[in-house]
C-alpha cells in the first residue's frame, strides 16, 4: 500500500469512527426530546383516534406560575383545572374545581372557595386545599422571578395571601376589592400544578414529560419545536371527558405550510394563526370548514394627549369622525375583521358602540368642523405623524395605515406622515408616551372582562395615551383634565362593583367619556379562525359547536373534539 493510500484509508476510518461515536454517545443523552419512556414497539399505535392540531405558536413555558401566552395557557388549561372556568363556547363563568361560586366578604377583600374532594392528578395523586394553597403561594413567591412573569400581571397586584382552612376550603385575601377576581380565578396562573414537577423553590418552564395536572389530559410526550402529545387523564372526574384517544399539537414555522397541511389532511385542525389571505382561500376549499371566533385581538390608534396636536380635543375628535372602519375591513381584510366602535368589544360586559353613536364616522363634514374650530383649514393644515410597526401586526398594517392616511387627508385639513418603525424600537417609544404623537397598538385580553380592555389605556400613563400622566407608586396617575378624572373615577368604581347590572352601567358611562375624550381610536377586532376537516366535530352539549366550541374568550377545550373515521 502506498503512503497516500494509507493516509486516505486512515482518514476514512477516522471519519467513520467519529460518526459512529457521535451516534452512540448521543444515545446516552437524549436531550432534545423529553418524553415518557418510549414504547419498545416498532409499530405505530393501532386503532386509537388521534386528532392533530397545527399551530404556528411556540411554547414559551409550561409552568402555571410563569406562562403568559395564549398557547401556553391553552396547554395548561387542557391539562389542568381552575376553581372557576368559562363554559366551552361561551363567556359564562361556572364552578369547575369549586363546588359553587366563591363567597365574598362584605368588604370585598376575602374570597372563600370550597373545592370538590377526590380530585386527582393524572398520576393518581390527590389534590387537597393545602396543596393547592401551596402552589398558589408559589405563584406569589417565585412567580415574579420567572422569565415570563405572569405573577406581576395577574396575581401580585391583587392577592395578599392564599390559605387553606381544611382539606377543601381555600381563602383568598385581596389587597383591594376587585369585582373581576372571579375572572382571574379562571385564568391559567390559578391552576394547581403538580408538586413534584413544579417544586415551590424554582420555576420549571419545560418539565420533562409526562406532565400531570388534574385536567382532562396530561402531556405524555413533548418534543421541542415539533409536537406535544396529550393523552386522557384516567382520574379526571369533570364534565369535559376526552372524546378522543390522543391529541397531537404540531408546530409549524410557516402559516402557508399549515394551510397546505390542513388541506392535505396532515393536520385535522389548523388553529392560530393563518392570516386573512389564507383564511379567505381556505373558506372556499372543499372538505374544510372555517369557523370564525368573534373574540380576541383588537387594533386601535394610541393618541398621545400630552403631545401637540393630540392635546387639542378638536383634532382627536376630527380623527375619530373621519375614519371609516368598514373600508379597512373590506379593502384590506376581505371582511375577516370586525369594525370596532369601543375599546370594550362586543360580547363583553357593558359593551357599547360609543364611538359610532358619538361620531357616526365616517363624517367628513363633522371632521372639518372640528378642525376649523381649532383653526385648521386647507390653508393651515394640521400635520400628523402616525407610526406603525410594519410586520408585528401582519404585513397588511401598511395597507390599512395608508387607508387611514387617505381618509384623514380627505378632510382637506390634515397632512399625514406615515412612519414605519421596527417593533423593538416602536413599542417602547409608543407606550413610553414621550416619542410619538400617535401609533397603532394591538391588545389581547388576559381575562375576558371590560376592565382588561379599558383600565390599561387610562390608568397611570395608559400605554402612551397620557390622559392620566404616570406617577410613581400611583395606580391611577394624574388626570390631565376634569373629564379624564371623571373617567378614572368611573373605571375605579367599576373595578370594585360586584353587582353586574350596576357594573355594566358604569362601563357604559365610562365608554361614553372615553369616546368623548377620544383616549384612543378603536379600529377593528381581529376574529380568530379555526379551520377543520369535515370529519372533526365540536360538542353540541356546549355553545358554538361550529367553532369547535371556541367562544369569544378564545378558550379551546380539546376534550370536546371528536373525529369520525
Amino acid at each position: 500500500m502506498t503512503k497516500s493510500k494509507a493516509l486516505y484509508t486512515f482518514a476514512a476510518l477516522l471519519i467513520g469512527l467519529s460518526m459512529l461515536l457521535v451516534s452512540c454517545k448521543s444515545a446516552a443523552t437524549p436531550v432534545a426530546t423529553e418524553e415518557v419512556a418510549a414504547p419498545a414497539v416498532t409499530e405505530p399505535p393501532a386503532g386509537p383516534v388521534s386528532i392533530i392540531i397545527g399551530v404556528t405558536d411556540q411554547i414559551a413555558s409550561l409552568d402555571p406560575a410563569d406562562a403568559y401566552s395564549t398557547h401556553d395557557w391553552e396547554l395548561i388549561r387542557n391539562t389542568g383545572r381552575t376553581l372557576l372556568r368559562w363554559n366551552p363556547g361561551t363567556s359564562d363563568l361556572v364552578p369547575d374545581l369549586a363546588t359553587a361560586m366563591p363567597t365574598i366578604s362584605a368588604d370585598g377583600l376575602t374570597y372563600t372557595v370550597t373545592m370538590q374532594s377526590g380530585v386527582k392528578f393524572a398520576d393518581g395523586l390527590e389534590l387537597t386545599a393545602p396543596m393547592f394553597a401551596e402552589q398558589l403561594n408559589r405563584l406569589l413567591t417565585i412567580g415574579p422571578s420567572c422569565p415570563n412573569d405572569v405573577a406581576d400581571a395577574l396575581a401580585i397586584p391583587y392577592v395578599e395571601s392564599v390559605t387553606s382552612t381544611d382539606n377543601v376550603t381555600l381563602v383568598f385575601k385581596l389587597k383591594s376589592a376587585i369585582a373581576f377576581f372571579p375572572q382571574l380565578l379562571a385564568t391559567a396562573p390559578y391552576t394547581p400544578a403538580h408538586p413534584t414537577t413544579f417544586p415551590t423553590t424554582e420555576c420549571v418552564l419545560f418539565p420533562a414529560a409526562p406532565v400531570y395536572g388534574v385536567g382532562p389530559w396530561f402531556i405524555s410526550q413533548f418534543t421541542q419545536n415539533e409536537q406535544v402529545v396529550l393523552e386522557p387523564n384516567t382520574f379526571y372526574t369533570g364534565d369535559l371527558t376526552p372524546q378522543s384517544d390522543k391529541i397531537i399539537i404540531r408546530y409549524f414555522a410557516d402559516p402557508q405550510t399549515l394551510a397546505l397541511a390542513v388541506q392535505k389532511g396532515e393536520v385535522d385542525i389548523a388553529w392560530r394563526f393563518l392570516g386573512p389571505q389564507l383564511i379567505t382561500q381556505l373558506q372556499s376549499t372543499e372538505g374544510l370548514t372555517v369557523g370564525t371566533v368573534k373574540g380576541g385581538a383588537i387594533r386601535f390608534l394610541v393618541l398621545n394627549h400630552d403631545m401637540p396636536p393630540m392635546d387639542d380635543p378638536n383634532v382627536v375628535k376630527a380623527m375619530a369622525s373621519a375614519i371609516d372602519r368598514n373600508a379597512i375591513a373590506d379593502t384590506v381584510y376581505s371582511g375577516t375583521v370586525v369594525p370596532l366602535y369601543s375599546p370594550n368589544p362586543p360580547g363583553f360586559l357593558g359593551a357599547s358602540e360609543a364611538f359610532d353613536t358619538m361620531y357616526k364616522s365616517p363624517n367628513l363634514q363633522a371632521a372639518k368642523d372640528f378642525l376649523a374650530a381649532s383653526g385648521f383649514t386647507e390653508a393651515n393644515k394640521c400635520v400628523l405623524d402616525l407610526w406603525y410597526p410594519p410586520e408585528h401586526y401582519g404585513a397588511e398594517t401598511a395597507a390599512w395605515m395608508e387607508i387611514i392616511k387617505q381618509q384623514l387627508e380627505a378632510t382637506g385639513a390634515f397632512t399625514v406622515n406615515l412612519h414605519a418603525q421596527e417593533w423593538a424600537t416602536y413599542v417602547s417609544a409608543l407606550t413610553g408616551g414621550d416619542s410619538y404623537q400617535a401609533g397603532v397598538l394591538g391588545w389581547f385580553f388576559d381575562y375576558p372582562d371590560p376592565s382588561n380592555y379599558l383600565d390599561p389605556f387610562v390608568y397611570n400613563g395608559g400605554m402612551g395615551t397620557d390622559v392620566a400622566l404616570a406617577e410613581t407608586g400611583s395606580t391611577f396617575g394624574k388626570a390631565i383634565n376634569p373629564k379624564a378624572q371623571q373617567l378614572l373615577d368611573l373605571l375605579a368604581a367599576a373595578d370594585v362593583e360586584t353587582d353586574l347590572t350596576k357594573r355594566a352601567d358604569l362601563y357604559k358611562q365610562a365608554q361614553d367619556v372615553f369616546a368623548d375624550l377620544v383616549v384612543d381610536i378603536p379600529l377593528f377586532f381581529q376574529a380568530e379562525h379555526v379551520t377543520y376537516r369535515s370529519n372533526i366535530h365540536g360538542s353540541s352539549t356546549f355553545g358554538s359547536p361550529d367553532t369547535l366550541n371556541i367562544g369569544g374568550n378564545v378558550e379551546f377545550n380539546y376534550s370536546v373534539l371528536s373525529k369520525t373515521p
Partner: protein
Amino acid sequence: MSPIALIVLFVSVPSLILLLYILVRGSTGLRRYILTRIGLTLPMIFILATLVFFIMHILPGDPITSALGPKATPEIVARVRETLGLNKPLIVQYGLFLKNILTLDFGNSLVGGHRPIIDEMSERFPATLELIIPASILALFIGIICGTFAASRRKSASDYSLRIYSVIIYSLPIFWFGLMLQLLFGVILNWLPISGRIDPVIGTSLQHVTNLYFIDALISGNWPALGSVTAHLVLPTLTLGLILSGVFVRLTRINVIETLQADYIAAARARGIREHVIVYQHALKNAMIPIITLIGLQVAILLAGAVLTETIFSWPGMGSYLVLRISARDYTAVQSVITMFALLVAIISLAVDIIYSLLDPRVRY
C-alpha cells in the same frame, strides 16, 4: 456536557488526530500549508464573530421590550435585562460572548423561556444535518452525472438542455420552488408529505436516540418510522438538492471539457480505449479536483438554502430557528447561530483545502 459539545468533541478529536498525523508524517511544504490555513481560519472566525456581535447591538430597539410587549412594566423590563446581563457595558458583554464561544456555552435566549441556546441548537442541529446531507449528495450526484454527460456530448441537444436546466434551476427562488413541489406532490397528487420530519402519530413510537430520525428509525428497527422519515425527507431534499445541482452541472461540465482536451486523453483515444471509459474513468477523475474545492464553498450556500427550505417545510432545524429568532430580535441566539454556521463553514473549507492539498501536491503556499 451538552450533545452539541459532544458532537463537536467526537468530530474534532479524530480530526485533530488526523491533522497531527499529517503534520508529523507529511512533507515540510504540506505542513507549512496546513499551518498557514489554520492560522488564517482562526482570525477569520474571530473577525466574523466580532462583526456579528456589534452589528446585532448597533441595530436600534430594545429586544427585551420587544419580547415582553406593551404589558410589561419598566421594573419588569429592567429586571429581565439584569437577569440576562444586558445591563452590563457593551465591552463586558462582548468579552462574555467571546468566552462563551470558546466554552461552547452561548448563554441564554432572550425570549420565551430564556432557555440555554446550546440546548436549543442541540435539538435543532440534527434536523439540519439530516436535511443537508442528502441534499448535498443529491446535488453532487445530479451535478456530476449530468455535467459529465453534457461534456461528453458537447454542443448536442442534450448538452444545451442540461446547460439550460442548470441556469434555470439555480436561479429559481427556493421558497417558490418548494411551494410548487408541495402543491404538486403533496396537495394535488397526494404522494408525499409536505411538512415536518415524521408523521405525528408514527412519531410517537420513535425512540429519540441521536435525533437524526433516519438513523434512530434504522437502529431501532422501526420500519414504519423509517418509511415516514424517508417520505418526509423527499420534498425538502429535492428542493435544496435540485437548486444546488445547477452549479455542479456547470462546473463539472466545464472541467470535464477542459480535461477531455488534454494530451493524455488524445493518447487514450488513439489507443482505442472506449469513450465512456475515457470520460468517466480518466477525465472525470482529474476534473474532480476543482469540484471538491467548490463543495467547501457550497456549504455556506447550502446552509443559507436550508434556512428557507426549513421554513417552507416546517423543518425544525437551525435555519428555521434563525428566522424565528431574528424576528424576535433575540441577539444572543442570532449571534450564536451565525457563529456556529461560520465555524462550520470555516472548518469544512479548511478540511476541503487540506484534502485538496493531499490530492494535488502542487497546491502549496
